[in-house]
């Protein structure tokens, strides 16, 4: 058995008041210390180049969509969040999506659709905020998903960089 002898408090310590004053001094000093809280909507979350936000569809400068509605992303999606319907077009790429829906409540932001896409049409943007008043409103349709290439450029550059790395390592 271990007996720990308690230290006898001195009269000064038993008064408690000096300790109380000391405590008050500490809390007052902390009042003027820098604060940790991030004022979220005004101070956005810092993004890195690896940040995977919600998937978006790239639209070329001439307002044509890159997607050919091949359905690969639909097949790759592990959460079954993507629904595509395509139709013929007289443009060179022959097909384009008629209906392209991503259920943002199902999307797990994994980025498989981006990897699967053979036409560099779908990219994980840096958009992360997701809030609405109904579930239906969070099923994003074609219009909500379209983004000009310029808005996605950062991500496109990053993906190209990663893909280049794989290519050089396989060729050597």
């Amino acid at each position, binding site marked *: 058995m271990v007996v720990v002898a308690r230290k006898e408090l001195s009269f000064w310590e038993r008064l408690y008041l000096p300790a109380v004053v000391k405590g008050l001094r500490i*809390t007052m000093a*902390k009042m*003027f210390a820098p*604060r940790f*809280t991030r004022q979220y909507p005004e101070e956005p979350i810092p993004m890195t180049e690896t940040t995977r936000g919600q998937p978006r569809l790239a639209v070329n400068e001439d307002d044509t969509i890159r997607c050919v509605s091949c359905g690969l992303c639909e097949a790759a999606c592990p959460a079954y969040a993507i629904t595509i319907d395509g139709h013929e077009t007289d443009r060179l790429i022959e097909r384009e999506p008629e209906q392209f829906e991503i259920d943002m409540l199902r999307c797990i932001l994994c980025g498989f659709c981006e990897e699967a896409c053979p036409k560099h049409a779908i990219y994980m943007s840096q958009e992360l905020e997701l809030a609405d008043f109904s579930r239906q409103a969070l099923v994003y349709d074609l219009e909500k998903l379209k983004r000009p290439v310029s808005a996605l450029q950062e991500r496109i550059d990053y993906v190209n960089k990663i893909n280049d790395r794989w290519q050089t390592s396989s060729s050597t």
Partner: protein
Amino acid sequence: MQLILIWLLVTLVCYGGVIVTAALMTLAERKVSAAMQYRYGPNRVGPFGLFQPLADGLKFMFKEEVVPTGANRLMFRLAPVLTALPAMLSIAVIPFAGEIGTYEGNAVMGSIANPEIGILYVLAVSGIGIYGAILGGWASNSKYALLGGLRASAQMISYELSLILAVLAVVAMTGSLNLHEIVAGQQGWLGWNVFSQPLAFLLFLICAYAETNRHPFDFAECEPELVAGFHTEYSSMKFAMFFIGEYTAMVVMACLVTTLFFGGYLVPFWTDAPWWIGLIAFCFKTSFFLLLFIWVRWTLPRFRYDQLMHLGWKVLFPLALVNIFLTGAFISLFGSGGN
């Protein structure tokens, strides 16, 4: 007729001032505690979150009122009123400013009423406040609430005694129960009672914390042990009433500390200051003690219950007795007054 109007105006301003201060205290509480914990506190409603108390009040009004089964309905409804009302009643004699002016030969003082027994009235009325906690705890038909109410009453009895004895020393020094005269007795260099009665001040301050159920003596609420203590079962505006009562009592206590020990509305080294300067000085001093209430709350942990009783009966009470004995001896030997 005009006298009634003046009196009405003074009443309105005094009550409005105290209630608004009490409301702002709920905001200050959160703001200061947030700052002490590296946070910001409420800052979304209005500039600097200033309308937060208003929003809180609105929220309380629209909440559902729940009366637990088996509760004594009359007492359950009466308890919040009994908490808030005494605190508000004691505002009536607080001297906020000196002589504002004269009306038909009568001096208009900066308080709603100016009875000869001012301090006695405050102590008597604020003593009723405890009934709210006890009745609320008992009428709720809940174990936690009952325990909270019991603790509140035990605590109140232990501490009110020392509180009154501390005040008595001040009263003996001044020779008057009138709050305006107590303030007037603190004129001059080091005239504040805190210099002649430092022990009484300390006792009063500690007991004031216990009296208002504030940390480190908030046994009536005591979240980790009793859920929320005597107001566990309360909801909606009835719950808010308890809070209004608590915060108003806090403001009143801060006013009393200022009045009894820190020269009330007197400005140091400026004897003939106009009344509004005195009012500002009073607000300034009171604000400091209000800040101290919050400051202490977020610094000290809660006492254990037996420690509370030990402190009350074995430390504060004998000290208060010694203090009053010494004061009495001093006065009888060297004549009245410390000035």
